[in-house]
C-alpha cells in the first residue's frame, strides 16, 4: 500500500499485540533447568504459583524442592508445612509414579543466618556473634535480612542438590519485598558493603596496627568515626565494631557466597518466571523486573499472568450488549433473575476487558516476553488438588 493511499484511509486501530506463548511444561521437563525463580510484586499469587509448579514438576518426574518464604497458612498446610523447620520435608499426596518427588520448606531467616555463622566461625567466635546485640537485631527483626537469607538458602539447597543428588529442580518463591527487585540486589549489596571502606573503618580500631591503617586510608577517617560515635552513641558503635570484628574471618565466605548466588542466578540452568495479576500496578512492577533481568543477563522464561478472566465468553453478549438487554428486560418487567444474570455477566466482561487492556499494554512494551495465563478462581487455592488444577490450566493454555 502506498503511503498516499494509506493517508486517505480512515485510521484503523492497531491490532492487539500477540504475545509469545510460554510453555511451562517445556521448562519443567527440561533437565537442564535446575532453578525456577518465581518473582513479582506482593499479592499476585507468587507463592501459589511456585507451589503449583512444584507439584506439576514433581508429578512429571522431577525431583523437586519448593522454597517458600511466607506462605498463607492453609497453603502451607496443604504442603504439610505445619512448623518452621528450615529444612525441606516431603509433601504427602503427590503422585510419584513418574519417578519424581516433592519436598517443601518455609524459610526461617534467623535460623538460616545462625547456620551461616556456625558454618563459618569457630565455636567461641560463633557464641560471641550470637551474643552481640547488633547481630540479634540484624538477624531477627530488621527488614531486608529475609532477602539475603532467601538467597543464602537457595545457595545451600543447590549445593546440597549437587552434592547429594537429592533434587534436580529447585522452585523458589521470593520474599514480599518493598520492591520485587530487593532480593536480586541483596546479595550484591552485601558484597559491595563487605568490600567497602566503611567495613574497614569499623574494623580498624579492633585491629592491631589500626593507626597505621588509618593513616593509609586517609585523613577523613577520624571525623567519620567521630561522627558515627556522635550519631549512634559510643556503645552502639562498639557493638557494631565487635560484631564486624567477629565476622572478620567469615567475610571471605560471605562475599564468596554472595558472588556465587549471583552467578547462580545468571547461569543457564536458572529460569525466572515473573508472576503478575492483570492489574496496572502489578504489571508495572513486572515491566521493571523484565527490564532489570535483561540488564543483569538473567534468564527470563516469561510472564505468568495470574487470575485472568477471559474476554468474550458469550458471542452476542458483550458488556454493553448485556447491559442493554438487561435494561430492555427491566423496562418490560417480569424477568428479574435474567436481568440480574445479564448484569452479572456484564460486570465480569468489563473486568475481563480491563484486564486484557493492561496485559496488551505490557505485551506491546515487551513483545519478546512469552506469556502464560492462570484463570481467575472464585476462591483461594489451598490444597494439592487446587494446585494441580492451577498448574494444569497454565500448561493447557500453552498447548492450545
Amino acid at each position, binding site marked *: 500500500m502506498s503511503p498516499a493511499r494509506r493517508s486517505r484511509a480512515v485510521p484503523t486501530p492497531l491490532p492487539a499485540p500477540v504475545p509469545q506463548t510460554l510453555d511451562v511444561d517445556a521448562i519443567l521437563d527440561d533437565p537442564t533447568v535446575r532453578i525456577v525463580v518465581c518473582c513479582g510484586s506482593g499479592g499476585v499469587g507468587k507463592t501459589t504459583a511456585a507451589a503449583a509448579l512444584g507439584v506439576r514438576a514433581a508429578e512429571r518426574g522431577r525431583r523437586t524442592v519448593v522454597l517458600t518464604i511466607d506462605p498463607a497458612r492453609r497453603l502451607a498446610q496443604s504442603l504439610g508445612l505445619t512448623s518452621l523447620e528450615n529444612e525441606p520435608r516431603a509433601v504427602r499426596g503427590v503422585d510419584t509414579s513418574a519417578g519424581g518427588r516433592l519436598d517443601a520448606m518455609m524459610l526461617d531467616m534467623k535460623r538460616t543466618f545462625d547456620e551461616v555463622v556456625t558454618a563459618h566461625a569457630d565455636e567461641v567466635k560463633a557464641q560471641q556473634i550470637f551474643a552481640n546485640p547488633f547481630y540479634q537485631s540484624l538477624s531477627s527483626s530488621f*527488614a531486608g535480612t529475609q532477602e539475603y537469607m532467601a538467597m543464602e538458602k537457595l545457595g545451600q539447597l543447590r549445593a546440597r542438590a549437587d552434592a547429594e543428588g537429592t533434587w534436580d529442580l529447585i522452585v523458589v518463591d521470593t520474599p514480599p519485598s518493598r520492591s520485587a527487585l530487593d532480593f536480586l540486589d541483596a546479595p550484591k549489596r552485601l558484597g559491595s558493603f563487605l568490600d567497602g571502606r566503611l567495613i574497614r573503618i569499623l574494623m580498624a580500631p579492633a585491629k592491631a596496627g589500626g593507626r597505621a591503617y588509618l593513616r593509609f586510608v586517609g585523613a*577523613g577517617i577520624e571525623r567519620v568515626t567521630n561522627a558515627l560515635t556522635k550519631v549512634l552513641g559510643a556503645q552502639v558503635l562498639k557493638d557494631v565494631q565487635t560484631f564486624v570484628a567477629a565476622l572478620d574471618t567469615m567475610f571471605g565466605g560471605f562475599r564468596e557466597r554472595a558472588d556465587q548466588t549471583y552467578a547462580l542466578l545468571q547461569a543457564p540452568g536458572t529460569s525466572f518466571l515473573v508472576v503478575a495479576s492483570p492489574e496496572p500496578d502489578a504489571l508495572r512492577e513486572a515491566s521493571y523486573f523484565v527490564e532489570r533481568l535483561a540488564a543483569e543477563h538473567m534468564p527470563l522464561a516469561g510472564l505468568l499472568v495470574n487470575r485472568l478472566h477471559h474476554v468474550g465468553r458469550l458471542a452476542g453478549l458483550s458488556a454493553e450488549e448485556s447491559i442493554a438487554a438487561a435494561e430492555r428486560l427491566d423496562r418490560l418487567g417480569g424477568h428479574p433473575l435474567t436481568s440480574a444474570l*445479564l448484569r452479572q455477566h456484564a460486570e465480569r466482561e468489563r473486568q475481563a476487558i*480491563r484486564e486484557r487492556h493492561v496485559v496488551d499494554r505490557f505485551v506491546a512494551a515487551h513483545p519478546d516476553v512469552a506469556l502464560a495465563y492462570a484463570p481467575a478462581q472464585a476462591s483461594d487455592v489451598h490444597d494439592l488438588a487446587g494446585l494441580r488444577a492451577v498448574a494444569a490450566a497454565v500448561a493447557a493454555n500453552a498447548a492450545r
Partner: protein
Amino acid sequence: MARPKDAPSKDWPDVRLHVVTGKGGTGKTTAAGALALALASGGGRVLIVEVEGRQGLAQLFDTPPLGYAEERLAPAPEGGEVFGLAVDPEDALLEYLELFYRMRSAGRLLDRFGVVDFATTIAPGLRDVLLTGKVYEAVGKRRAGRREYDAVVLDAPPTGRIARFLNVNSEVAGLAKVGPIRSQADSIMGLLRSRRTAIHVVTLLEEMPVQETVDAVAELAEIGLPVGGIVLNMLRSAPLRPTDLAAAAKDALPRAEVLAGLGAAGVEATPETVAVLLEEAREAAERAALERRERRRVSALGRPMYALPLLADGMDLGGLQDLAAELAAQGAA
C-alpha cells in the same frame, strides 16, 4: 488559606497520624489517598507520606513524581488541601545529620565512605528508623505557632512488615541505651503508641488478605501499637439477590425461565448461553459465601469497619474523591 478543622475525624478525633497498611494488592495506597482526601475535606490540611520509593502517590493523584519536599497533591472538597511527600532514606539521613547534629559536611563525608549506603540499604532497620523519624517530624511540624498539618496519613509498608517497621525504634532503644538516637527513638515510640496514632488495615474479603489482617492486628496489639479501623476494599456489587445466589450455589436456578428471559430481551440464546450465565452465578455465589465468611472473621476483630466499592472503570481522581466521600460518610473522617 483554609482554616483547620477542630476534629478532623469522627471515629478518630484524637488521631493525628493515620497509618495505612494492608497486604500487597489490596489497594492500600488508594485507601490511604482516599482517607487523606476525606480528612482534608471541610478545610483541613493533610499530608500523605509514602516511604517505599514507588511513587505510588504521584500515580494515584496523577502528578509528576514527588521530590524530597512536600508538594500540594489535590484540593479536597470545601477548601481542604492534601499535600504529598515521598521520603527518600538517603536524603532523610543527610537531613537528619544536619538537623540533629549540624553535620552537613560530615554527612557528605559519611556518604563518601559508604555509611549512607550502609544505613539505607545494608542495615534496612536503620532505613526504617529514618523513615519513621521523618513521619514523626511531619506530625510535629509547626509553622507560625500552629500545627502545619491537621493530620498525617502514612502509606505504610505491607502487613507482613508493618509491626517490624513501626516497632523499629524500640529495637533501637534496645540497642542504644543512651544518647541522642535513644531519645529520638523514645519520642517516636511515644507517638506511635499513643492515642494520637491509629493503624488502619486495608483488606479484600479474601482468605489470604484477611488472614494477614488478623495476624497483623494480633501482632500490633501484642507490641502495644494502636490498631485503628479495617477497610474492606474493592467490594463488588452483587446484582443477584441472596435467594438467587443460594439457588445458584445448588445449581437450582430455573434454566427454562432464564432462557425465556433471554428470549424476551431479544438475545439469541442457546442452552449453552444459559449454562455459562448460571456457571457465572455459581461462581458469584461461591465468592459471596467466601466474602461472608471472611467478613465474619474481620468483624470478630471488633474494630470499626469501612467498606469501599470496586470502581468498575478503574481508578482516577474522580473515583478517589468518591472513595473519600464513602470513608467520610462511614465515619472514618
